[in-house]
């Protein structure tokens, strides 16, 4: 269900799961736009030479996935803060799932808090975050 106003939001509601595109071409597109063109993000072989398991999805891209997920659920939401903790690497060309849950609703302020996680196929959390968003009250 798409959220248009705060009345549509329920405490404890789970946002629709979002599987982001972590393919190498998409990561390179992101890195070009963000100015983060280090080979550890754009080249598996170069990343492995640094001792990494493969090219890394930049942490700021994972953060961008979380923000995108919120707007997919509530297109009119304005993110006022988004705080992200990088617990473990997110690897390019691997499958990840993003989950979110509404943890607080302030009806006076029109404000919602959402907890977000990026997990791998094994169900391990790689990134987690908290966002505060404003959603129109009417």
């Amino acid at each position, binding site marked *: 269900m798409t959220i248009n106003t705060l009345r549509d939001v329920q405490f404890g509601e789970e946002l629709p799961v979002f599987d982001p595109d972590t393919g190498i071409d998409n*990561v390179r*597109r992101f890195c070009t*736009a963000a100015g983060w063109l280090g080979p550890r993000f754009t080249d598996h072989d170069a990343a492995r030479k640094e001792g990494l398991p493969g090219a890394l999805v930049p*942490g*700021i891209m994972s953060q*961008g996935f*979380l923000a*995108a997920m919120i707007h997919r659920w509530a297109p009119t939401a*304005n993110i006022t803060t988004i705080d992200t903790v990088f617990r473990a690497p997110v690897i390019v060309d691997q499958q990840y799932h993003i989950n979110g849950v509404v943890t607080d609703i302030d009806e006076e302020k029109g404000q919602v808090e959402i907890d977000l996680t990026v997990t791998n196929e094994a169900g391990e959390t790689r990134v987690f975050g908290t966002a505060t968003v404003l959603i129109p009250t009417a």
Partner: protein
Amino acid sequence: MSTQISEQSADHNIEEADIRAAREQFLNVVYDEKEFIFTAEQFADFALACGETAPRYTDPSHPDFQAPPTFPASLHPGKRLPDGYPKFNGLGMDAGKAAAPVRPIRPGETVVGRTHVHDIYTKSGRSGRMVFSLIRMEIFDKANNLLASADTSIVIRERPAQ
């Protein structure tokens, strides 16, 4: 005044006195100022690669087109840390990012990022003690209105004593 890390801490661990001294010297002092100007294509590519669907972030022809909310977290200051910042002994890594958009950042607009150390603190966990440096860049327009702030949390995991 320069911050001195004691001989013992440089070889073994970080004293609380070192943290206090670093806080006194570096907190809330702007150590870097850098101008930025962005293109609409940058904003749209950033947003689309992240899977963004809201047209105000993906469509440059949208009347409210602006930087995606997490874009400020991607900006690098000219200097990562202030001159003279203590080199805490340990393994360093990027522990997290936060972004707080306040007003829209528009393409073609010159903005200024001013960076300071916002906090320095320690935490102890199962793997030992960690020192966190929270670096905050605040982004202003030419009229000095705050547009956004972005935090980078750098953590140094203390090496075990020899």
